[in-house]
């Protein structure tokens, strides 16, 4: 405690010394005078002292936790325990669902639009969570699948006049196919090499879409894509936004349901085992190729599907929407939220998409804050905002038999 204060004081003095020429002295060359801004010095001292102390406090707390964990004590936070309580979970889900349903009635179109984009990222995050969070296959080009879905709808709509509802599953399946296409060459890769190839895949998609003008109309993109139809009726802009919002809510629920089931199934366990130890996994009789391909294909499925929705929402797409930046944001959502945790990914998506939206005033500092948040997360909570809950199983009627053995 006292040690921490002393250390922080030293840090603070050091910062004052370092920033002195920049923050305090200003030479006014016009009037040939030196302005001394002593107030700045005070601010620097205070800020660095507080931040440094906070930093140290968090570090000691983390170390204490580690010590408790080594002694086999309770390390789950209160939040974690609350989440493991089933009845609380159901209640919370009900409240959230209700809030989600009345949201567009209470707020205006602008808010709904923002919420739609956040929900799009929720689905993208959940999809990527399958390959990165569960199967442990880093994918830096995930946005390509999103683009594949968007372009499938745009092109099918443009050339064949196919509607939104038919294309929604088609987009997902085409995404799936591209997942398998990417999956084959990288079956034998892992770690850094895997990251590079997937990164390349994302880049290739964008470059191809920019240059293959006869197919994709190049950088100018495709405009006038149909919005989702509501039983053949034409909706006003506001109504159609609300309509898309509800489609998105349904899609999110569908995604959560399916990914949750997959996660707790035989396939999901195989993915997690593959993430944990590939050699042990294959020695336990799990077909590595099939498991890897299924992880990529199912991850890509969601991106393809939500890509269709994205195209119908914006009614215009061009390759600029599918840059590496998008992949990085989706990956950050998964990492920040908590790899493998569905709730964590949802929270991560809302934080990373909504915060910049509502803090437009600080938009210049967006990337700075983003980076800082990532670094801080990796130091203090490497497992993400919500770490994966442990699955428990019921073994009915077995407890009594234990005495026989």
């Amino acid at each position, binding site marked *: 405690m006292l040690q921490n204060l002393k250390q922080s004081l030293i840090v603070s003095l050091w910062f004052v010394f370092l920033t002195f020429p920049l923050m305090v002295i200003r030479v006014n060359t016009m009037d040939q005078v030196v302005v001394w801004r002593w107030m700045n010095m005070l601010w620097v001292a205070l800020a660095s002292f507080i931040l440094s102390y906070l930093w140290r406090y968090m570090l000691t707390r983390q170390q204490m936790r580690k010590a408790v964990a080594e002694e086999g004590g309770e390390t789950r936070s209160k939040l974690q325990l609350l989440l493991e309580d089933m009845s609380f979970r159901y209640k919370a889900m009900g409240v959230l669902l209700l809030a989600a349903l009345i949201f567009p009635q209470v707020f205006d179109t602008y808010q709904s639009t923002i919420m739609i984009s956040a929900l799009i990222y929720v689905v993208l995050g959940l999809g990527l969570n399958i390959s990165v969070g569960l199967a442990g296959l880093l994918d830096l080009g995930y946005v390509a699948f999103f683009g594949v879905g968007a372009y499938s709808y745009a092109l099918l709509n443009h050339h064949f006049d196919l509607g939104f509802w038919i294309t929604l599953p088609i987009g997902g399946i085409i995404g799936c196919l591209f997942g398998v296409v990417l999956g084959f060459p990288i079956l034998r890769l892992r770690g850094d090499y895997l990251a590079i190839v997937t990164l390349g895949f994302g880049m290739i998609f964008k470059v191809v879409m920019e240059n293959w003008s006869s197919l994709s109309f190049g950088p100018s993109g495709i405009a006038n894509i149909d919005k989702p139809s509501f039983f053949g009726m034409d909706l006003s802009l506001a109504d159609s936004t609300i309509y898309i919002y509800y489609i998105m809510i349904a899609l999110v629920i569908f995604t959560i349901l399916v990914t949750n089931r997959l996660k707790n199934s035989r396939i999901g366990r195989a993915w997690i085992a593959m993430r944990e130890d590939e050699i042990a996994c*294959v*020695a*336990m009789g799990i077909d*590595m190729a099939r498991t890897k391909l299924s992880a990529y294909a199912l991850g890509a499925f969601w991106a393809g599907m939500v890509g269709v929705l994205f195209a119908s929402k914006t009614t215009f797409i061009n390759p600029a929407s599918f840059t590496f930046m998008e992949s990085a944001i989706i990956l950050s959502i998964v990492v920040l939220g908590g790899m493998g945790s569905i709730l964590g990914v949802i929270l991560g998506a809302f934080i990373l998409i909504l915060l910049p939206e509502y803090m437009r005033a600080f938009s210049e500092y967006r990337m700075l804050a983003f980076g800082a948040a990532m670094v801080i997360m990796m130091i203090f909570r490497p497992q993400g905002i919500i770490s994966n809950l442990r699955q428990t*199983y019921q073994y009915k009627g077995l407890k009594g038999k*234990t005495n026989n053995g």
Partner: protein
Amino acid sequence: MADKKHKLLEVKGLTMDFGGLRAVDSVSLEVHEGEIAALIGPNGAGKTTFFNCVTGIYNPTKGDILLHPKGLETRRLNGLKPNKVTEMGLARTFQNIRLFPDMTVLENVMIGRHCRTKAGIFRAILRDKGVREEEQLIVESSYQLLEKVGLEDFANEFSKNLPYGAQRRLEIARAMATDPFLLLLDEPAAGMNPQETADLDQLIRKISEEEKIAILLIEHDMKLVMHISNPIYVMEYGKKIAEGSPQEIKDNPKVVEAYLGEETDA
């Protein structure tokens, strides 16, 4: 000789080269039904490489690995992928523990059931009655295996939090979950204290007698090896230098030389 017993694993002249290095040099070995066979030898003798060849992690340069499952036709294992080898009924553990650290103890064993169950992606999403029943069966059979190795109290702990000896036993349970008829244990007693080793001794015998699983083990703990296994195969510098009962091995001058060095006149 009581050679009436069914021959399960037959390895003939197995050779494994890594570039110019011959790690395993035409080693032959047989494991019969009901046996606890042991493969011993000094460090670097090629025992683990031998295991890796048999279980499909390496593709051997020369030789035949034949599996004779009871009532089924003989299969040649050369060049098969590890998961296929496991599917055929040959499971293994690892020298340096390879559990799935961030999965619970029960889930670790449940992974072993993977190749004996078949719910696919679509059925996992639909979760129909058959899938639910299969899941429940996986859970229960896995739990029973945990009881057999005495880990049922840890079922919902993360496997990384288990004590060392328990991790070794969990690896055995996980391997047994794949329904093998032959179990390959790579140094199961490494790093165990005498009490844990004694428990392991019991466990291996139990697996052999109650589960009718034949066992081939690599081990450095001579007390354990001499106590439970027969026959014993000895390897040195990639070659098999001796085989026989514990007593024959103890009296074999070549084995003594391999372990203690050549006798010299003072």
